[in-house]
């Protein structure tokens, strides 16, 4: 059975506004990078982000001096915000790869103008994810012991542990994402190099472009490698987020010990990752005046993706309640009861409303094309997703097998500072990408322009 959503756009609606030409897209997008003074909104955004980044630095200093006791983590809730936010950040990053790699393989036209935003987002979010577990270590300075490097101690990391799998997945994911990003951006850097007016910029972008000439041979090599990389990145990101799920599924804690965790996490990644991409696309479109390149077509397509993701997430939520009810474990049932009626209940119900109920508005075409509504729905999804991660991490630990050792979690000021600080790190990195790298894949948009012409 197939359902076709009425889009409200005519079937041959332009992906890119018809008056955009090869010349104009190249010059417009490059000029945002080559401009001498960044616009005021950029400085305001960057300033706020940088202030939040300083919060992170102060938070980390305080944390490293005093130990993780400054957070609200304790026994029984030994995993607090840091782990919940680790999952949250890596989900946002994974969403970027899904949009970029999966929809390259399907040759979706809307991916061409948004993939760079998605990749810049993922490269900004992945370090935030990586920082969280490191901050959560008792001795963060020794995190490199997780690398399987040859050492004189004769001690190796323990590859039977999902926590090590997690580390390997994350580190491989970040390195591979950099390769993937760079392979895609190389032709655009050459465009910027050829348009640069000052000598410093010519040298900078000349070096970054590695001497790319756009010859037929280069394009052929680039496209072959890029296609194979996409085919690798798409399953790779499933594995990354599934392994994050295995961290929990392999624990014996009630509420975690469940085979559904991998797909459950992955569905969440699709929804929250696409939601943050939509928000950033609205920012880029408005800030950089790229209304002709980032059109309603893109919002319509991404909103549909969010809708599909939220339906899949709904399925996972149904299973989340069906599992404990159907199984015979008393602890599982009790934990679930506490999760929905205990101290986590406000976050639990809010999360369901924000991530699967409100996004149902996206069935209506006018909502999918209204940027204000999209902005509200997407921020709701991102907040809801954070609450979801928070609820299952905290509630399960707080309601373990022994009722006598149940507990409650109270976040401290430094917990919130870590959240605000990583948001600062994310936004700082994203604003730097906005300033110094073409934020729309110029080469791929050129292809779309030619396709539109021949339509």
């Amino acid at each position, binding site marked *: 059975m197939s359902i076709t959503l009425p889009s409200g756009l005519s079937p041959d609606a332009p992906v890119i506004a018809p008056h955009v*030409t*090869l*010349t104009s897209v*190249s*010059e417009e997008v490059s000029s945002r990078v080559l401009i001498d003074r960044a616009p005021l909104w950029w400085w305001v955004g960057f300033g706020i982000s940088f202030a939040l980044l300083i919060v992170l630095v102060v938070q980390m200093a305080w944390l490293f001096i005093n130990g993780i006791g400054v957070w609200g983590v304790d026994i029984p809730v030994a995993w607090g915000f840091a782990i919940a936010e680790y999952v949250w950040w890596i989900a946002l990053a994974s969403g970027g790869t899904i949009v970029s790699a999966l929809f390259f393989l399907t040759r979706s036209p809307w991916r061409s103008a948004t993939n760079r935003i998605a990749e810049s987002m993922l490269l900004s979010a992945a370090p935030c994810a990586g920082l969280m577990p490191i901050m959560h270590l008792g001795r963060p300075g020794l995190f490199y012991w997780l690398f*399987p490097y040859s050492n004189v101690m*004769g*001690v*190796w*990391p*323990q*590859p*039977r542990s999902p926590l*090590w*799998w997690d580390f*390997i*997945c994350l580190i*491989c994911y970040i*390195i*591979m994402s950099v*390769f*993937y990003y*760079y*392979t895609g951006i190389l*032709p655009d850097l*050459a*465009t910027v*190099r*050829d*348009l640069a007016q000052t000598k410093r910029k010519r040298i900078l972008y*000349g*070096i970054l472009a*590695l*001497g*790319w*000439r*756009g*010859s*037929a*041979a*280069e*394009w*052929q*090599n*680039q*496209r*072959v*490698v890029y296609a*194979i*990389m996409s085919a*690798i*990145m798409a399953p*790779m990101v499933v*594995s990354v987020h599934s*392994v994050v799920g295995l961290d929990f599924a392999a624990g014996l804690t009630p509420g975690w010990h469940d085979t559904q965790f991998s797909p459950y996490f992955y569905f969440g990644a699709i929804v929250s990752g696409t939601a943050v991409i939509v928000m950033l696309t609205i920012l880029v479109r408005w800030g950089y005046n790229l209304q002709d390149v980032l059109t309603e077509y893109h919002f319509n397509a991404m909103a549909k993706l969010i809708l599909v993701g939220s339906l899949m997430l709904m399925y996972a939520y149904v299973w989340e309640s069906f599992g404990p009810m159907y199984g015979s474990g008393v602890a599982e049932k009790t934990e679930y009861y506490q999760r929905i009626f205990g101290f986590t209940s406000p976050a639990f119900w809010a999360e369901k409303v924000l991530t699967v109920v409100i996004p149902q508005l996206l069935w209506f075409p006018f909502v999918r094309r209204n940027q204000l509504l999209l902005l509200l729905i997407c921020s709701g999804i991102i907040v809801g997703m954070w609450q979801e991660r928070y609820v299952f991490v905290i509630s399960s630990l707080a309601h373990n097998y022994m009722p006598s050792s149940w507990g409650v979690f109270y976040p401290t000021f430094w917990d919130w500072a870590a959240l605000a600080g990583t948001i600062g790190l994310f936004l700082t990195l994203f604003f730097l990408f906005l300033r110094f790298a073409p934020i729309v894949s110029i*080469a*791929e948009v*050129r*292809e779309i322009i*030619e396709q539109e012409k021949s339509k």
Partner: protein
Amino acid sequence: MKSLFGIIATFDTPDAVRDAARQLRQSGFRAFEAYTPYPVEGLAEIIHPGPKRFLPLLMFGAAIVGAAWGYWIQYWGEAFNYPLNVGGRPFNSWPAFVVGTFEFMLLVAVAAGFVGMLAASRLPKLYHPIFEADAFERASRDRFVICVESTDPRFDADLIRREFALLGAERIEEVRA
């Protein structure tokens, strides 16, 4: 006087550049290259015919090497160099090693693809004689450029100029480097 690198012509549509490349090939030229703002379909097959299996095979080979490396690291540490009895589980607990093996496999494949792509395209190479041509600059924006290089045995500047003019080139010039 700088030596002649080749004759360059710009075209304003992808179809024109494809026709030009086909025509040059039929006239017997071999040392020519097209520079385009995006990959023009069919162009690479005209200029560089023949199967292109190097990069896919390289990435496949790298994937095998990466998988072997990933498994070996875990096997070496857990079963060989420092065997640790964890609840009586076998030292070589291969199901637990699958994740690490998988990730290393993909990492090495992607890294090899990136390095292979650069090597196959002779990059990084910050200077190339084609950069001397004024007309070349727009190849990274909105023009489709073909350059017949002087190393071609059939190279004849006047003949090539005439041929380009017949093909409807927008602009024809010499590249000296």
